[in-house]
């Protein structure tokens, strides 16, 4: 049974601690992940900007990397969601189209894999803090990951989950959108951070480091001490304590 880590470029380059938390958590259930070296980026920045030829260059590395994996786990609903666009991206390429269909079936966002494949909802973690949760758009809307993270957090001892007002509103990241339309994006992340502060949580968790980089970058800019982390990091910290 080959379980591979789709590490995603942002987690590989900027947030290695998130991928490490996932690898360590899965090892506790007997899953030894492998890391196919040829993977780079899912292609989303180019795909969303309309540069599909360029997107295919990146996407092919993902399709090649996981060709012989049984399960592919990623720390991002958005990057896993991108795999769901591969059938459109490769509609004129029968070889990669077939690979795309196969990969879509076997790829999972981290909490999907934990809850639906391993059947784990209680990791025995302890985390006595006030936490709020931002449901990233692509994970919740493309993949339908809505309850999984909530169920996992409910079972963490000591964790107080407080509601995030307008939680389902986009944080304003949107990839190249944040660069091209920086003022609109800035208005969106400002409001998102306002809501995080309004929740009075000590910790903000999510399932997508791009969105969390956006929100935490803005909180830091405002000098607000809210801790921002991926749910996998929280769970790993929580089980290390026990």
């Amino acid at each position: 049974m080959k379980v591979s880590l789709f590490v995603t470029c942002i987690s590989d380059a900027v947030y290695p601690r998130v991928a490490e938390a996932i690898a360590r958590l899965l090892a506790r259930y007997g899953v030894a992940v492998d890391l196919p070296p040829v993977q780079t980026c899912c292609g989303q920045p180019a795909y969303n900007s309309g540069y599909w030829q360029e997107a295919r260059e990146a996407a092919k590395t993902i399709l090649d990397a996981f060709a012989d994996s049984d399960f592919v786990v990623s720390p991002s609903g958005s990057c896993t969601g991108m795999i769901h666009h591969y059938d459109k991206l490769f509609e004129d390429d029968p070889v990669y189209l077939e690979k795309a269909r196969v990969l879509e079936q076997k790829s999972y966002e981290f909490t999907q894999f934990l809850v639906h494949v391993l059947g784990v909802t209680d990791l025995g973690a302890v985390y006595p803090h006030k936490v709020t949760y931002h449901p990233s758009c692509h994970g919740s809307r493309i993949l339908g990951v809505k309850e999984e993270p909530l169920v996992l957090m409910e079972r963490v001892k000591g964790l107080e989950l407080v509601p995030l007002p307008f939680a389902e509103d986009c944080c304003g990241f949107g990839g190249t959108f944040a660069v091209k339309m920086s003022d609109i994006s800035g208005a969106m992340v400002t409001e998102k951070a306002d809501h995080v502060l309004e929740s009075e949580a000590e910790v903000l968790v999510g399932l997508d480091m791009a969105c969390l980089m956006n929100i935490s970058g803005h909180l830091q800019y405002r000098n607000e001490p809210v801790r921002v982390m991926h749910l996998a990091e929280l769970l790993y910290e929580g089980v290390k304590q026990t």
Partner: protein
Amino acid sequence: MSAAQSKPRDTVKERAELALNNAFLRKAVKYTTEKLRGGKQQAAEEHGNWEAWRERGRQIRLHTIAHLDYYLQEFAENARANGVHVHVADTGAEAVEIALAIAEQKRARSAVKSKSMVTEELHLNQALEGIGVEAIETDLGEYIIQLAGEAPSHIIIPAIHKNRQQIAELLSKDAGETLPPDTTVLAGFVRKKLREKFLEADLGITGCNFAIAESGSMVLFENEGNARMVTTVPETQITFMGMERIIPSWSDLEVMATLLPRSATGQKLTVYMSGITGPKRQEDGDGPEEMHIIIIDNGRSLQLGDPEFQELLNCIRCGACLNACPVYRHIGGHAYGGTYSGPIGAVLTPALQGNVAEWDDIANASSLCGACYEACPVKIPLHDMLVYLRRRKVEQGYSPTLERWAMKGYAAVMSSSVKLQRTLKLGKLGQKLVVRDGVIKARIGPLEGWNRYRHTPGLPEQSFRERWETLEPDIRGSLQEMDAGMKERMQQLVRSRSEGNENQGKRDSSEGESIRSDAPTAYSGKRNSDRVDREESGVNKGKGGGNHG
């Protein structure tokens, strides 16, 4: 004039800037969109079977558009049999000419109008004024923006960008006396004023929410009763109808009448729903002596047969995508630069005109979050369409040079992990110039706009890949035995996959049984509408659900 509008001179960025710097506008738009989407969400929950009805709505629209020629023919024949003059216009200009000819033939001096987005698309009011016919908007919100000399900034709530104080000032000027910013007083003034206009109008002009093919009827949804006045008092009625407004039967209307008001305003039923089948008959107490329906193409048929955009014609103009959109929420409708705003406008405006290149920039004003699709009562994949528009722009060679180079660079780096590693190493060296305390604050290069609102994390010493060499043996050393049940479950998943059962083990938690064994906790991502400051809110701004066809 082959298309409804020419391109505005400024960019979406510049127009958005105006809105972002207008605190009144942002507050007013937020207040009303929050109320509307909250109402919609509640109405959908109370309905109890929303997703199934949404799918049914989508199917009705898909079927109708796939057989549009058939249903249009059926509609036109039946309407003519009812005594309606049916006209067909390829362009907006043709539609306007037809209407002006009718007005001239009737020697009309004034026209009362109920709310209609298609007549906004055609700039009908200006054309009528041009031949000396006074056109009066009778929907409260439309009346307000007509006074202001503006265009609607929302499909359902035209004056959504104005607050109560601003509206009181406009209406005071109209009244010639100072009116207090009190909803009852303001609405009372407009009501009295419009009553006289209704009585003296020669023409009643409407849009059309739905046209029923089986009986040749047209249906209007509204909340103020003004559309009913428009279609009963004047001697001549002219209805403008986008060619896609059609549905096959009255039983299909039941589905639409369930979806539209709930999606638009959160109402279970619109206050007035009028089905009109031909002009006044002998036994009727009221109604127009003469009735015209002008069926308008104006770029709609360009979508037929286009697999990426045909579903645009499924739109029922409820405005739910505007209310759900986190971008619209901050920039309002005028920033989109066209008649239709929000996510639907960002796609519809370039699509109707077939000139993607000139309108490309509004497709960029989206983070592609998908809230529009989730809100849409007929499930139009607007977030995908925005990407298709961007792609067409690139394919047609209209993308900025710098962006093209950047994307070529991206492809070169991401086409191989070796190149990616090399680039990251360079990045780690280069960042030494700009990283302070682990973050980059300098507003340089592509970080110029980004860093105006954020700090950017620096790259850590080691990437995950580099760390993996030492991490992997360490993790393997701590590997636990896998539970037998878990192993069996995983093997079963792999087997069922090869048997063709897709998405095994990926239950969408929004459908089907819950993954919880106990009751849900208090947590939910629901909005907290009580937080909203009610002070700066508008009056009801022509409370929505008007005939927006």
